[in-house]
C-alpha cells in the first residue's frame, strides 16, 4: 500500500494533531458544560423574574462567548487536518468517517452557531421565552456536535458496521446504526459530555470561590457555586459510571490498551486493580525486570471491571505480544498476526493486479480470510503493537485520582451550599479553585489514555498510524506545526488574559433586565 514509511513525517503528523487537539480540548469541554448551566440559570430567571439569576446567566455567557470563539477556531483546524495531514486515512476510512462529520455540520453546528448569535444578541431584544429556547438549543447543539464527532472517534477504536472493498481499497459503511449505537460510541459520548459538565462546573466554582474569598459578589458567587455543584456532582457521578463502561469496552476490544493502563505484563486470572504504583524505568517488553518498583492493588477488581467476573483472565502485554494458550483461551502472537497481515496484503495486491479471473477469485478468498489482520502487515516488530506503557499508565492513574478529588470537593461544596455556609469554609473554597486545573488534568489525561492507548492504530487492528498520513514531505508538516503552535499559543495567552480581565471586572457591571432583586 505504502512502500516507504517516513517516520519523521508520521511523528510530526501525530505531534501536529496532538498539539491542535490539545488546544481545542482546552476550550471545548468548558463550552459544553457551561451551556447547560447558563440555560438553567436563565430558566430560573424566567421563572422567578429574579434579575440576579439573569446576571448570573449573562456573566457566565460572556465568559462562554470568549471561550466559544477560540473553540470554533481550533475546531476547524482539526476537521480539515484529517484531509491535510491524514489523507490516506481520509480515503481508506472516509466512507465511514466523513458521514458523522457532515451530520455534525448539518444537524449540530448550524444549530449551535445560529442560536449562539440569538443568545448573545437577543438579550433584551427578543421575548424571554424565545431567548430561553435559544439558550437550550445552544446547549443541545453543542452536545449533538460532540455526539457525532465522538461517534467517529469511537469507530476508530471499535470499527463496526463496515466491510472492506478490495476493488477500491477502502472500508465502506454497511450499517449506520451499528456505528452510531456501538457500545464504544454511546459510552464515549456520555463519558465525554459528563466530563464537560465537570469542567464547566469547576470553572464556575473556581471563579465564584475566588469571589467569595475576596468577599465580592457574595450572592452571585454562592448561587453560582450551588448551581455548578449540582451539575458537577451529577457530572462526576456520570463520569464514574461511564468510566466503568469504558473500562469494560476497552477490556473486550482493546486489550493492549488495558494492559498498558494497568502496567500488566503477565496476564492472570483474578487480576487486581493497581490503585497507585511506580513503574520500573527502562523496563522493556520481554525482559525479566519487575514492571513495578512499588504498587498497591485491590485484588480481583481488574478482572471484575474488565469481564464482570472476579476470576476472569486478563491478558498482559507479554501474552499479547508473544501469544498465550490455555485450556480456555488462545491469544495469537503479534508476529503471527503480522504474518497473516502480510498474506492479506499480498493477496490484495495480486487481486488488484491480475487479469486472470481464477487467480482473482483465489486472491479474493485468501484476502477475505486474512483481512481482519490486514493492519498488522505494516507493523515492523511485534513489540510495536503495545502503546507507550508509562504514558498510558500514569495518565490513567492521574485521571482516576483527580476524579476522586473532584467528587469529594464538589460534594463538600454542595453540602455547605445547602446549609448556606459555604463562604465560611475558606479551605474548601481554595480546593474549589484547585479543582478547575485538576478537572482539566483529568480530562487531558483521559484523552491521552484513549488516543495514545489506541496506538499504533488509527483504526484498531486494521490501519496503522504510519500508513495513515498524507504523502507529503515531512518538512511541510514541521513548518506548519510551528506556525500553528506559535499562532495558537499567542491566541491562548490572549484568551486567558481576556478571561482574567473579565473575571476581575466581575459580574457587578453586567446589565440585567427583569424584576426586583430577591
Amino acid at each position: 500500500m505504502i512502500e516507504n514509511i517516513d517516520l519523521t513525517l508520521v511523528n510530526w503528523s501525530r505531534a501536529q494533531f496532538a498539539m491542535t487537539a490539545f488546544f481545542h480540548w482546552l476550550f471545548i469541554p468548558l463550552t459544553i458544560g457551561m451551556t447547560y448551566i447558563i440555560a438553567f440559570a436563565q430558566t430560573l430567571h424566567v421563572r422567578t423574574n429574579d434579575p440576579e439569576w439573569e446576571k448570573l446567566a449573562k456573566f457566565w455567557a460572556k465568559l462562554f462567548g470568549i471561550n466559544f470563539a477560540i473553540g470554533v477556531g481550533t475546531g476547524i483546524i482539526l476537521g480539515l487536518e484529517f484531509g491535510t495531514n491524514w489523507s490516506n486515512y481520509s480515503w481508506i476510512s472516509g466512507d465511514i468517517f466523513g458521514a458523522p462529520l457532515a451530520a455534525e455540520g448539518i444537524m449540530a453546528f448550524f444549530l449551535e452557531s445560529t442560536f449562539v448569535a440569538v443568545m448573545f444578541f437577543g438579550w433584551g431584544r427578543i421575548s424571554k421565552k424565545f431567548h430561553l429556547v435559544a439558550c437550550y438549543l445552544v446547549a443541545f447543539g453543542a452536545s449533538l456536535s460532540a455526539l457525532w464527532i465522538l461517534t467517529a472517534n469511537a469507530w476508530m477504536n471499535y470499527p463496526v458496521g463496515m466491510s472492506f472493498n478490495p476493488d477500491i481499497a477502502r472500508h465502506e459503511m454497511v450499517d449506520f446504526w451499528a456505528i452510531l449505537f456501538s457500545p464504544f460510541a454511546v459510552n464515549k459520548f456520555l463519558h465525554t459530555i459528563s466530563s464537560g459538565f465537570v469542567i464547566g462546573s469547576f470553572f464556575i466554582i473556581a471563579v465564584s470561590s475566588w469571589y467569595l474569598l475576596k468577599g465580592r459578589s457574595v450572592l452571585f458567587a454562592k448561587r453560582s457555586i450551588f448551581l455548578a455543584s449540582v451539575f458537577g456532582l451529577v457530572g462526576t457521578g456520570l463520569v464514574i459510571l461511564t468510566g466503568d463502561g469504558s473500562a469494560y469496552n476497552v477490556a473486550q476490544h482493546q486489550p493492549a490498551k488495558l494492559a498498558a493502563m494497568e502496567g500488566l505484563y503477565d496476564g492472570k486470572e483474578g487480576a487486581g486493580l493497581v490503585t497507585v504504583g511506580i513503574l520500573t524505568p527502562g523496563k522493556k517488553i520481554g525482559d525479566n525486570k519487575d514492571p513495578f518498583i512499588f504498587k498497591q492493588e485491590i485484588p480481583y477488581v481488574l478482572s471484575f471491571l474488565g469481564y464482570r467476573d472476579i476470576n476472569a483472565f486478563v491478558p498482559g502485554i507479554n501474552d499479547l505480544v508473544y501469544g498465550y494458550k490455555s485450556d480456555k483461551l488462545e491469544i495469537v502472537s503479534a508476529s503471527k498476526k503480522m504474518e497473516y497481515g502480510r498474506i492479506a496484503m499480498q493477496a490484495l495486491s495480486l487481486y488488484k493486479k491480475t487479469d486472470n479471473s481464477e487467480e482473482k477469485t483465489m486472491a479474493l478468498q485468501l484476502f477475505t480470510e486474512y483481512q481482519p489482520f490486514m493492519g498488522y502487515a505494516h507493523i515492523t516488530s511485534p513489540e510495536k503493537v503495545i502503546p507507550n506503557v508509562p504514558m498510558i499508565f500514569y495518565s490513567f492513574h492521574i485521571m482516576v485520582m483527580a476524579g476522586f478529588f473532584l467528587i469529594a470537593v464538589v460534594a463538600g461544596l454542595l453540602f455547605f451550599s445547602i446549609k448556606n455556609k459555604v463562604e465560611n469554609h475558606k479551605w474548601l473554597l481554595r480546593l474549589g479553585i484547585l479543582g478547575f486545573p485538576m478537572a482539566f488534568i483529568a480530562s487531558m489525561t483521559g484523552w491521552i489514555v484513549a488516543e495514545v492507548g489506541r496506538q499504533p492504530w488509527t483504526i484498531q487492528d486494521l490501519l496503522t498510524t504510519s500508513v495513515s498520513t498524507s504523502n507529503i514531505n515531512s518538512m511541510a508538516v514541521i513548518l506548519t506545526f510551528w506556525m500553528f503552535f506559535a499562532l495558537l499559543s499567542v491566541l491562548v495567552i490572549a484568551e486567558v488574559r481576556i478571561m482574567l480581565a473579565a473575571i476581575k471586572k466581575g459580574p457587578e457591571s453586567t446589565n440585567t433586565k427583569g424584576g426586583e432583586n430577591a
Partner: protein
Amino acid sequence: MLNSLSHFDLQQYWWLIMSLVGSILVFLLFVQGGQSLISTLGKTADERNMVVNSIGRKWEFTFTTLILFAAGMFAAFPLFYSTSFGGAYYAWKLFLIVFVIQAVSFEFRRKKGNLLGTKTYDTFLAINGYVAPFLLGAVVATFFTGSAFIRNEYNLSFWQTELYGIEILFEPTNLALGFAVLFLARILGAMYIINNTLENTIIERARKQVAINTVSFLVFFLYFVYQLLVMDGYAVDPTSNQVYLEANKYLNNFLAMPISIVLFLVGVLLVIYGIISTWFMKSTKGIWFSGLGTVCTVLAIFFVAGFNNTSFYPSFIDLQSSLTIKNASSSHYTLTAMTYISFLVPVVIAYIYFTWKAIDKHKITKEDIKEDAKHHVY
C-alpha cells in the same frame, strides 16, 4: 424510500447539494468582503466598530457553511478530500490560518487584556477578508485548470510538486477567479453594510466601494469566463471511464445543460441589477439581488465542473488520476444515509432565515456599539 435511486443518481444528487452549499458559501463571503473594507468604510473608531458589529453578527454563518462544505465533501467525495487537502497542503493550511484568526478577532478585538490590541485584530480580520475569498476562488478554479497529482492502485494520492498548492498561484486563470471572488465579496460586503446600518457616512462610502470594486470584479470575472469557454476541458468517457481532453469542454457543458446557461445568465443579471440598484437607485436591498445572483452563477459554474461526464478535480500530470463524481464518491450505502440526513437542510435554512430576520430587525446604530450595551458587542 431511496432504494430506487442508483449510485449514480445519488452521486449527482450530492454534487448538486455540494454545489448549492458552495454557492451559498460564496454569497456568505460578504462577511469577508466587509472585513476587507473595515478601514475604508470606517474612518473613526466608532465607524469601524459599527462596520465590525454589522458583519460580525453573521461571521458564524460563513464559518459554519465552510465547515459544512468541507465535511460534506469528505462524506460525499472522500477521494477529493484526501487528494486536494493532502496535496494542496500549503494552500489549505494558509486557508485554515486565516480562518483561525478570524474566529477570535471579532470576539477579542475590544476586550480588555486582549494582548495584541484592537488594530491587530482588525488587521487579522482584513487579512482573512482578502485571503479567504481569493484562495477559495483560486482553488475552485483548479476544478477547471487541473492540479499536479497521481493516484496509485490503492487510490492513495501523491502530489507531484513540493510546492503543495502554492503552484496554484502560477496559473492566470486561477488568479483571475481568485480576484473575481475577492472583488465580488467586497461588493457584497459593502451592500450588506448598506442594508444593515443606519449611519449615512458609512452607507455613502459603501456605495462608492460597490462601484469601484465592480470595475475590478468585471475585469477578472470576464477574463475567467472567457478562459472557461475557450479552454480544453477534462472529459470522461461514460463507458470506459477514461479521462481525455476535449476542446471547449466547458462551453459544450453549458450548451448541453440549458439549466446551467439559464442559471448563469440569470445570476449575472441579478448581480448586475443589485449593483445598479445600489449605485444608481440608492437602494439598500441590492445585497439580496446580487446575493441570489451570486448563488445562481456559482451554481452554474459547479454544474459545468462536475456534471455531463466531466472530471471535477482533474490531474494535468496524469489524466487517469483525475477525479470524477463517480470515482471520488462514497459508497451507495453511505450516500443513501447521507441523503436522509440532507433532508434536514430545509429545516436548517428555515431556522437560519427566522433568526437572521430576528437579529437584523434592528439595524446597527452608534448606540449598539457601546461597550456597556445590554447585548453582546464586538
